[in-house]
């Protein structure tokens, strides 16, 4: 026995093994535990830097909800995040790794801004429709580029879409410093503020983008679940061979879906530029395209869940900015806190799928 114990100690090792598919109840429990753990770990971090975690968390909640102004600001943060999360979801459902939401947002914003800057004299309603369409086409075509090259030459869409982000960003800079520079800015590099005719209307004190976001949530939900296109997307994501066997054209489906994915992101750009920024700024996407990837995955690519997750993200974002100013914390502290929370939530997802096994004995 003693010999065996020694042998066992030598052989002590931890393995990761896949869990059997867990039930919904257990999955919800895991998620609740991970959120709780996230809040506790975040609290410890706050304690370490010398603040009271309860008052800091209270400030985050208050900062996001306390006044109608605060709530409106939270929703304003949420709008582009929600819409672009829906956009990337279309591509992700097909297992097309569209990391280029950032660029597609910008492309949509640029196309819409052209009409806001140079055709602002059109009737308001017509102008809005045209700008909306421009956002769709701009984002859609920008999404089509990587899909075309993947279909034609088998290029890697992850790198391709990522690089296109930077191209889009510098196109704004080029426009800002050249053709579209604001002549009245006194040399300060910026693009002119849109005239009020070219600004998105407000409903309930918030720009109309929130309604667009809700409608898109429903549309994407139905599109993925009940249409032929949605069915084709799920077959293509399984395997291109299966799709071809079923008489589908996977390349066509890939091009079409990436157009829609980019188009939805383009709408996010149009809404952000004309509804929130009232101009085309280099920060029009501002990292939203990347956060959208996290939101989409946390929501398991389910449109309704995306609505909830993007709202929670916005609360965290808006609340942290209030927290920063109230406690005089640096931006980085808020970022660290967000990072801790995200880390635990993602770890929770990991434990739903895997478990640790120590030398044959299972531990959760």
């Amino acid at each position, binding site marked *: 026995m003693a010999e*065996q114990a020694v*042998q*066992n100690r030598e*052989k002590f*090792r931890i393995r990761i093994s896949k*869990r*059997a*598919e867990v039930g919904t109840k257990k999955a919800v429990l895991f998620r609740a535990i991970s959120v709780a753990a996230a809040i506790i770990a975040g609290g410890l971090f706050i304690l370490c830097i010398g603040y009271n975690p309860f008052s800091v968390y209270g400030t985050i909640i208050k900062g996001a909800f306390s006044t109608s102004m605060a709530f409106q600001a939270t929703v304003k943060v949420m709008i582009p995040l929600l819409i672009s999360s829906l956009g990337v979801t279309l591509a992700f459902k097909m297992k097309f790794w569209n990391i280029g939401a950032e660029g597609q947002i910008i492309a949509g914003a640029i196309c819409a801004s052209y009409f806001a800057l140079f055709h602002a004299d059109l009737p308001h309603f017509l102008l809005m429709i045209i700008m909306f369409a421009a956002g769709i086409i701009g984002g859609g075509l920008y999404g089509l580029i990587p899909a075309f090259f993947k279909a034609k030459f088998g290029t890697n869409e992850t790198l391709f879409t990522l690089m296109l982000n930077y191209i889009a960003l510098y196109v704004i800079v080029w426009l800002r410093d050249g053709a579209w520079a604001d002549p009245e800015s006194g040399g300060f590099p910026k693009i002119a503020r849109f005239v009020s005719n070219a600004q998105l209307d407000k409903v309930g004190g918030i720009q109309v983008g929130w309604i667009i976001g809700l409608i898109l949530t429903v549309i994407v939900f139905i599109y993925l679940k*009940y*249409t*032929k*296109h*949605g*069915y*084709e997307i*799920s*077959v293509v994501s*399984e*395997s291109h*061979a*299966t799709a*071809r*066997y*079923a*008489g*589908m054209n996977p390349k066509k489906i890939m091009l079409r879906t990436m157009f829609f994915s980019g188009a939805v992101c383009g709408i996010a750009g149009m809404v952000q530029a004309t509804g929130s920024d009232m101009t085309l700024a280099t920060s029009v996407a501002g990292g939203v395209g990347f956060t959208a990837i996290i939101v989409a995955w946390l929501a398991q690519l389910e449109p309704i869940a995306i609505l909830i997750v993007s709202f929670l993200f916005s609360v965290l974002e808006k609340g942290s900015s209030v927290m920063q100013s109230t406690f005089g914390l640096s931006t980085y502290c808020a970022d660290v806190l967000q990072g801790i929370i995200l880390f635990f939530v993602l770890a929770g997802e990991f434990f739903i799928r895997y478990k640790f*096994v120590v*030398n*044959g004995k299972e531990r959760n």
Partner: protein
Amino acid sequence: MAENSEIKSSDYAIECKEITKTFGTVVANDHVDLSVKYGEILALLGENGSGKTTLMNMLSGIYHPDSGSINVLGKHAVINSPADSIALGIGMIHQHFKLVEAFSALDNIIAGTPGKLKKRSALREDISAISEKLGLNVDLNKKIYNMSVSEKQTVEILKVLYRGAKILILDEPTAVLTPQETEKLFDMLRIMRSEGCAIIIITHKLNEVMAISDRVTILRKGQSVETVLTAETNEKKLTELMVGKPVSLSIERPEPIDPKPLLNVYHLSVDKPDGTVALEDVTFDIYSGEILGVAGVAGSGQKELCETIAGLNGIRSGAVLYNKENIIGKTAKEIIELGISMSFVPEDRLGMGLASSMGMTGNMMLKSYSKSKGPFIDKKPARELAERLIKELDIKTPSTEIPVRMLSGGNVQKVLLGREIESAPSLLITAYPVRGLDINSSYTIYGLLNEQKKKGVAVLFIGEDLDVLLELSDKIMVLCHGRVTGIVDAKTVTKEQLGLMMTGSTAEEVLGNG
């Protein structure tokens, strides 16, 4: 770790007691006992999913048992990794070879051992000594990608012997071999037995069990049902132990009724995407109401033949006439609409015919979803069809929405074949429809194919078990390296003759010589 030299031949090389292994809620091994002596060949017999491979993977250190003990040479052994397993003298030859294609035989044999530090000539001598003892003949400089399946297997065996294995485990070694190659392998195993090796051979082919083993351990549903001496049993008794109840082992072969040519393949040549030849000048006819079996070593062009008829491949030259209409150049969709149904099942069953993470409902729609009007899909008829198939074919699934990848192999095959038959095809192409199935399910599938045949459907049956091909088909076409080496009458040809044709002899040579 263990001292091999002091072992008497009567001692057990491996003794497994009460081994239990679960995956999630599935119990793969349930208190399994197994033992093998030196100088003995033990056959491990069981249907697919009975836990054979799981048990062997625990001996080779890939899995770790939840409970139970493994004794090697009478001593308790903890096998945590393949390295531990090799140190104990256990060598596993997997069903899918684990060789580096770009390396030579020699490099593969010494990979991962300190052999790299020795001189090549010394290594060559060491390995030649082993292979001579066993009467093996291997060109050590030959690259793996230039080797035939049976040569690769020989390299695998040399690999484990070079590592000092005295206990050999072979996982379904004959699945990919022709009858002649199988016989050669068995000779090799018999020599190893006389050299004092302990050998465990996993199989579900009864005739092989009878031919090679000394004892048989039978697994059923994760439990070790019984261990019997081969000399004291027969195929019928073994089947009963394996299945759990008496089964009849004959396959019906109804006479074709009013056969008419339905599909004519003329001088068809197809290239693989990498430019090598997949099919060369293939010509044959399929008649309605007839089952045309296709025999051949894996990778002889079966896949490309199926895919070409289904419209998934471009061709180099030739024609495929369906009711005298050339279907080359038509899209897969147009061919489906003509009534050609392909339930093609590649090596991984879920690869092409089914979308694995969709439920049965989603899979029922795979080829018919575009027929409904408007932009929306209509799930209702698909769900009804799924429910009907569950009843008619006795498919075991908790619901129509459970992803099909979670069903067992037999049920997956039934889902696939059921859908294809439901589309009322006039030509049914089916490849390896019983791969991975237990005996009962296999016979259900044969029954389904015969039913289609009686309805006048032409069936192209790509098979791998020659016994089944001989019993079920009306005619058998043999492919070798993409060429047809013969189309023969299944009632008169023998297994050995098929084996010769599979390795390149033409029908005239084989049948002419007798």
